[in-house]
């Protein structure tokens, strides 16, 4: 059942939030042991929250647009009184003394948080295999990865554990798992959603966004979490756009460009079945009245290399705070210096160590210009190329992921192969632009394919209109 319908029924008293919750807890109890989407399921807290919603409805109050809707939150967003681990040993057992702004907004809208979802440690990864607490499996085929790093949030929605969840996206960590699990995933414009209380990975790239089973539900959740927050200095001051009211306006007269460099002809590794679905998606937009043509956005292919310098550089700085002094793990030693090293060595997993070292190297004296400086200039080229493209097109189109979901363990031995799965999603993060993944049929293996709709900054309304057209025209999805 959609989040909109649940909220309507709970608000009007047709159904109780408690019965909605209990239905979802039943699905979780049945399949969570196999999927492992959650680091923690908050049964008692969720029941108390649902009962509170029901008593407010009984008292004639309106609990809000997400009244009684079960939601899951990625475990890198702070929740007061509830452990927040980032799926890392270094934060195991840490209980935040405050809520992230998005968590407060969910509660204020009447949503019921049912759990914190698994992720690649500190959101570093593309398969959720880097979690210190075990892998998450793809609900559509449990031998496959759910994607990452927000794999738990994507799997929770795909498995029917919750109709909505929150993820974070630094280089594709919402859109890629959404594509691999066959759900809708949105990375909003940088600054559109407050990051207060999101544990920082790469601060110039990180953005929180929604997962949902429908475009309309994703719009509903994005509207709830968007808007200015004085606690986040990068928060955009303007009021957020109304998405719900524009969803059915179609794409008549829109100009849409398929990014040549990310769509097969310009790049090795985009699978044939993914290219085929992209072509069908383009045809569907054309049939709905848009002009669709292939266009060159040349520097997007360099996004991957620039990203894997910039993101680790920012991470190496952000993760310096895990020193065993104020929170989290401490491994004792005779001196403070030895304590820092012992704590970080025991607390961080391999991928986090790799990125910290890569970032430390890229920022070190003598190598700064060759790596970090150069990557920041490439970022400028990408911003400029997008600006040129958006002077001719309202939206751009590409695959979300080069392939459908890959097998567990397939890419863990070779980090570079894993990184390549983010090649289509990274450019939007570097530019600060919104983009979203919409399920569009399946590949030769029967697993979902995602089509990525890209828009310029604050272009969410047009992006959602195109997404709604794609959703309506999509071939049947994967059978679960």
């Amino acid at each position, binding site marked *: 059942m959609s989040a909109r319908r649940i909220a309507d029924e709970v608000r009007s008293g047709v159904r109780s939030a408690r019965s909605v919750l209990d239905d979802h807890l039943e699905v979780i109890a049945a399949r969570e042991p196999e999927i492992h989407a959650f680091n923690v399921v908050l049964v008692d807290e969720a029941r108390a929250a649902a009962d509170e919603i029901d008593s407010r409805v009984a008292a004639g109050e309106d609990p809000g647009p997400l009244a009684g809707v079960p939601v899951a939150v990625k475990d890198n967003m702070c929740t007061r009184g509830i452990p927040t681990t980032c799926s890392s040993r270094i934060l195991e057992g*840490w*209980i935040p*003394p*405050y809520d992230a702004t998005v968590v407060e907004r969910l509660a204020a809208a009447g949503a019921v948080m049912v759990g914190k979802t698994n992720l690649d440690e500190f959101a570093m990864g593309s398969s959720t295999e880097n979690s210190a607490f075990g892998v998450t499996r793809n609900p559509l085929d449990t031998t496959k990865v759910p994607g990452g790093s927000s794999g738990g949030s994507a799997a929770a929605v795909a498995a029917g554990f919750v109709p909505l969840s929150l993820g974070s996206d630094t280089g594709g960590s919402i859109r890629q798992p959404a594509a691999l699990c066959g759900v809708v995933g949105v990375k909003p414009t*940088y*600054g559109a959603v407050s990051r207060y209380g999101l544990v920082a990975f790469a601060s*110039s790239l990180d953005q929180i966004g929604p997962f949902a089973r429908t475009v309309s539900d994703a719009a509903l959740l994005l509207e709830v979490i968007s808007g200015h927050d004085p606690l986040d*200095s*990068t928060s955009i001051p303007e009021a957020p756009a109304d998405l719900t009211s524009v969803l059915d306006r179609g794409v008549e007269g829109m100009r849409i460009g398929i990014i040549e460099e990310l769509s097969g002809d310009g790049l090795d590794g985009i699978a044939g079945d993914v290219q085929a679905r992209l072509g069908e998606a383009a045809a569907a937009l054309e049939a709905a009245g848009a002009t669709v043509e292939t266009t060159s956005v040349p*520097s997007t292919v*360099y996004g*991957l*290399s*620039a990203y*894997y*310098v910039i993101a680790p550089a920012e991470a*190496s700085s952000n993760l310096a705070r895990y020193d*065993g002094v*104020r*929170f989290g*793990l*401490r491994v*004792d030693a005779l*001196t*403070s*210096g*030895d*304590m*820092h*090293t012992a704590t*970080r*060595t025991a607390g*961080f997993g*391999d991928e986090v*160590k*790799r990125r*910290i*070292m*890569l970032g*430390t*190297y890229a920022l*070190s004296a003598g190598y700064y210009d060759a*790596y970090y400086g*150069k990557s*920041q*200039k*490439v*970022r*400028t*080229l990408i*911003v400029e190329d997008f600006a040129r493209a958006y002077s001719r097109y309202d939206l751009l189109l590409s695959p979300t992921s080069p392939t459908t979901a890959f097998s567990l363990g397939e890419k863990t031995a*070779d*980090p*570079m192969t894993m*990184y390549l799965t983010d090649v289509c999603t990274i450019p939007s993060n*570097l*530019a*600060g*632009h919104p983009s979203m993944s919409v399920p569009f049929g399946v590949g030769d293996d029967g697993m979902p394919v995602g089509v990525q709709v890209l828009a310029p*900054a604050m272009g969410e309304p047009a992006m959602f209109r195109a997404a709604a057209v794609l959703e309506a025209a999509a071939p049947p999805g994967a059978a679960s």
Partner: protein
Amino acid sequence: MAELARLALTDDELNAFTVQLAAILDHAADLDALDLADVEPTAHPLPLVNVFREDVIGPTSDRDEVLAAAPSVEDNQFRVPPVLGEGQ
């Protein structure tokens, strides 16, 4: 690099990481093909200016709650091993 990043690695780990990091840096060498001489760097997607808040007292974190999350505390302060005189 591991020392700078405050990480202790075994010889096996050092060997594996060295190979993997070299592969990532090799891939980044594709940027050498670009002419970047006259390009300004971009550090951030937004045209950021300093953001100031109103100078009024708002809610603050509870000291006991914050200290309760620390691994070691003494007299309302974070307790750490000796910083000076290391090696004694």
